[in-house]
């Protein structure tokens, strides 16, 4: 009985410490970094040299977030484009940066803003993931973007990254 109580108390205490540690860590590491969800790269026909990447960026910080570009070892060049249909003509507008105000969310999705992946170094296989670095004024963010079939709806965004493939792993940048 006594033993059990002590055990239980110890466990509770350990749990609390563990919880604090987790919170502490996540607070320290992820406090202001944007939440990234709905990550997708479109699988492409064999031989294609371009494809699109989509994601949702939630700027949870108190500062404006400016995305200045993206890069990946598997793609020669990544640009930020916006699809637009004006007077029945589909076109793409290149953006040098995307600004997201504090607390705001920006969706890069079909028919609007997207990452344009150009000159693929090697084919992006369906089911694989593409490592992409998103460059922002708050530091670089490492993304792990699953390659999916076009037309597959975006996966629901999860609150925290417990290994879900649609969640980016934000890492603080070493850069100033």
């Amino acid at each position, binding site marked *: 009985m006594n033993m059990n109580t002590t055990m239980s108390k110890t466990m509770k205490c350990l749990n609390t410490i563990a919880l604090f540690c987790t919170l502490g860590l996540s607070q320290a590491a992820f406090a202001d970094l944007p939440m990234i969800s709905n990550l997708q790269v479109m699988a492409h026909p064999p031989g294609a040299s371009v494809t699109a990447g989509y994601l949702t960026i939630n700027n949870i910080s108190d500062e404006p977030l400016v995305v200045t570009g993206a890069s990946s070892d598997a793609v020669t060049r990544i640009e930020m484009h916006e699809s637009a249909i004006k007077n029945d003509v589909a076109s793409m507008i*290149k953006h040098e940066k995307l600004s997201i105000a504090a607390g705001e969310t920006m969706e890069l999705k079909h028919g609007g803003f997207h990452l344009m992946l150009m000159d693929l170094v090697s084919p992006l296989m369906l089911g694989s993931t593409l490592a992409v670095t998103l460059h922002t004024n708050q530091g670089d963010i490492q993304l792990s973007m699953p390659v999916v079939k076009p037309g597959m709806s975006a996966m629901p965004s999860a609150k925290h990254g417990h290994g879900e493939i649609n969640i980016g792993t934000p890492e603080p940048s070493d850069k100033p």
Partner: protein
Amino acid sequence: MTIPSDTPTLRNRWPIIAVIAAVAVIAGIIANKAVYRKNSDATATAQPTDAEKKQLRTLQESLATTAVFPKNFITVPAFSLIDQQGEAVTESLFKNQWSMVFFGYTHCPDICPMTMTIMNSVADELKASNTQALQVVFVSVDPKRDTADVLGNYMNFFNPTFKGITGKLADVLALTGKLGIVASYTTIEGTEDYLVDHTASMLLIDPEGRVRGKFSAPHKVESIVDDYKKILDNLG
């Protein structure tokens, strides 16, 4: 040499502009009449009757995102292009079946793949509901990069039953121009690459090769299927 600014004198030029405009309108009417006389010989482009006009108006009101046209609006002109197998394709492609034509290019990362995916779902829906099949045709407005092989890969990826059309740029543009489809090319700064701006709508062609509908973007599976069914019920 500087081009003189004509802004201050624009007002003085209005009479000239008006005369030019009037001449253009008259020329247009004459040209239209000539085309009409030429077309009216063919049964395929016969004038719609009053009953047909009324039916078209009622149909138009029931459609979500599609504009319908009378049968004498535009007929697909003669053309000579190739498909994804490299086989010759002519205007006879559009005979004896309904077709949906989309104009795009395979280097288009966002709108074209999504449209192809949507049309794939449309084809599935039509099959599931036992509706008359729709031939899906993708005309590349970037034939320089979209060779038959490239189009073959593209069609196989989305739906091998879809027809991919390419050919000489001048021949493609002759066809698109006559169908009122636009395409323009913009170089991506600092690269050899270019982007193509193109008409986002799709054209519905009837089994006699006549343009009967313009399906506006943004495309949605449901509205395409619904509008196509209504058009079939009324014009099929």
